[in-house]
């Protein structure tokens, strides 16, 4: 199955019955798939007149208690930022899929990872964060999309799947693992008609003295919990590693073959892959830096996550090299191999 279709079908499996989208390459298979699949599943598909409209349709549907999703690619995600900030401010659960492409501006349509900052540092205005998951295979995209809906409901927060054009367009065998619904909190806050109960209010506007600060305190508390409980990562051969490569999403996938090759050649190289980009696995990386002093970060951008890696390990006296190529470039495993090898031989 193609990555884009897997994300769409995973959403259906997870009980998403509201999807609003807008055309942009390379994520078009998601709205196209949803346009017929939602009908079949008894859900709602809307093609909006713009990304701004699509994300606000999701805002409306989420407020009404629906499991709602929208998707786009980088320039379109930029247009959705206002809506994402409102979703975070109003504490509404929603899933946003970003099949990243090269930027800035119109860029091009090939895969990229240049929206890391936008996704994890808050591309919209205000002090907000959202859960960000970075899958590195179609199978993981499947699983994380389903998980995203649960986490969105549990924490009443927008969750972003930060994938990229390579993953979105890639076809891989996929186990359609069933969705297991965990125990989820009741959506007692949803605006479903207030007959027989007190009227609910969903808003992100707080004009009263001290109201907004209090609201922000609540949000910050939530982000603290996310940082504590929702860190996800994967490590490969890090136990005895002398050099650790840090990469997320498709860059990590590209790195595996280089890392394995170096292992065979006798270099003690490990791979650390953050799966949740917010919260970032800073403690885990920091712990790794007690022993490992040489890191290299590989990204399909000009250097974004590397800042978080440095924040996590530099205090422990570790050094962090970076190799990445910005939007428009495709990185080959051989290049990654060379760069890691340079770090290995630098001692």
């Amino acid at each position: 199955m193609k990555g884009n279709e897997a994300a769409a079908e995973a959403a259906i499996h997870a009980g998403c019955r509201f999807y609003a989208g807008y055309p942009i390459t390379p994520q078009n298979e998601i709205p196209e798939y949803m346009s017929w699949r939602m009908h079949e599943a008894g859900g709602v598909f809307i093609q909006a007149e713009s990304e701004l409209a699509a994300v606000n349709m999701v805002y409306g549907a989420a407020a009404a208690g629906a499991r709602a999703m929208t998707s786009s690619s980088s320039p379109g995600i930029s247009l959705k930022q206002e809506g994402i900030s409102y979703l975070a401010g109003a504490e509404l659960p929603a899933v946003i899929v970003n099949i990243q492409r090269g930027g800035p501006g119109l860029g091009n349509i090939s895969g990229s990872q240049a929206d890391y900052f936008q996704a994890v540092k808050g591309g919209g205005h205000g002090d907000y964060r959202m859960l960000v998951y970075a899958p590195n295979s179609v199978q993981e995209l499947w699983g994380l999309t389903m998980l995203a809906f649960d986490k969105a409901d549990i924490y009443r927060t927008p969750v972003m799947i930060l994938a990229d054009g390579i993953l979105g367009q890639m076809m891989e065998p996929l186990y359609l693992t069933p969705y297991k619904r965990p125990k989820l909190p009741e959506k007692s806050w949803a605006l479903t008609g207030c007959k027989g109960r007190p009227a609910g209010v969903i808003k992100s506007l707080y004009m009263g003295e001290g109201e907004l600060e209090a609201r922000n305190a609540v949000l910050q508390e939530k982000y603290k919990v996310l940082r504590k409980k929702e860190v996800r990562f994967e490590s490969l051969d890090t136990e005895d590693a002398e050099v650790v490569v840090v990469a997320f999403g498709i860059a990590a996938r590209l790195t595996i073959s280089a890392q394995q090759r170096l292992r065979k050649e006798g270099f003690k190289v490990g791979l650390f892959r953050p799966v949740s980009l917010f919260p970032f696995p800073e403690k885990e990386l920091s712990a790794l830096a007690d022993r490992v002093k040489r890191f290299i970060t590989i990204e399909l951008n000009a250097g974004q996550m590397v800042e978080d890696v440095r924040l996590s390990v530099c205090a422990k006296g570790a050094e962090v090299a970076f190799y990445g190529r910005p939007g428009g470039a495709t990185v080959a495993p051989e290049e990654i191999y060379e760069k890691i090898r340079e770090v290995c031989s630098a001692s």
Partner: protein
Amino acid sequence: MSTELKLKELSKKEDLFTHGHRMCAGCGAPIIVKMVLLAAEHPVIAANATGCLEVSSCISEYTAWKIPWIHTAFENAAATISGVETMYRAYKKKGKMDKDVKFIAFGGDGGTYDIGFQSLSGAMERGHDMLYICYDNGAYMNTGIQRSSATPRGADTTTCPAGSVIPGKPQRRKDLTRIMAAHNIPYAAQAAPSHWLDLMKKVRKALSAGGPTFMNIISPCNRGWRSKTDDAIALSRLAVETCYWPLYEVENGETRLTFKPKTKKPLIEFLKPQGRFKHLFAPENEQRLKQLEADIDAEWQRLLKESAG
């Protein structure tokens, strides 16, 4: 220098949209752009919304445009040209510029009817001296044939696929030309590349109106319409002759048909050669086909009435 709108004269003029673009074979858009730029009597500065035309005419360091041309995001062609035009007026006022320059924005139907509608409406209301040209191929062709609000009722697209439940797009298309005329701008018109003289006359009128003007030009797309590659002009002609795409102008509030077929051809002559309407000819979709015919006829009758007044 004014050139007479005669083929012999026009053939001596330099093409300002030229080789090097990578539009599909049989695409209507480059033909339209060529005609528009040939009709212009002054230097033109153009803004272009993201879409087929923009993507295919500025690949890497190549450009097919022999005029100052600025690309902008999908929703912003009218806003961007507003900025350029305003700066030009400021320069002129300060005596830094004396040349007469015309400003044109190009956008497809997605970038005009849908996401760019707000900036288009704003530019028209503010009254910039500009012409906005929508090349309307009836869907988001650049991203893979998704429906737009210009897609006619019943057409099959990748986000309103014709199947057993829904026979193509359920909604009627937005009547954008009329909406633009309702901005009470000096000139709004509909044109078609098959009727080149009519199209070019309209461009001249629009560019000399001295205010915000709008033209909606039908642009056959064989990829999205599922038609033959060499059918663009024939289909454009059929669109006009079946009154699917009436040629008319609204000048200072007065509606005038610029082409009235002696006998209106049946709509199916326009629909039949297009794969996007194929399912409408199945017996179970007879009602849908009738509905589409009724849509088109109602618009034609309204135009007849308005232009007779």
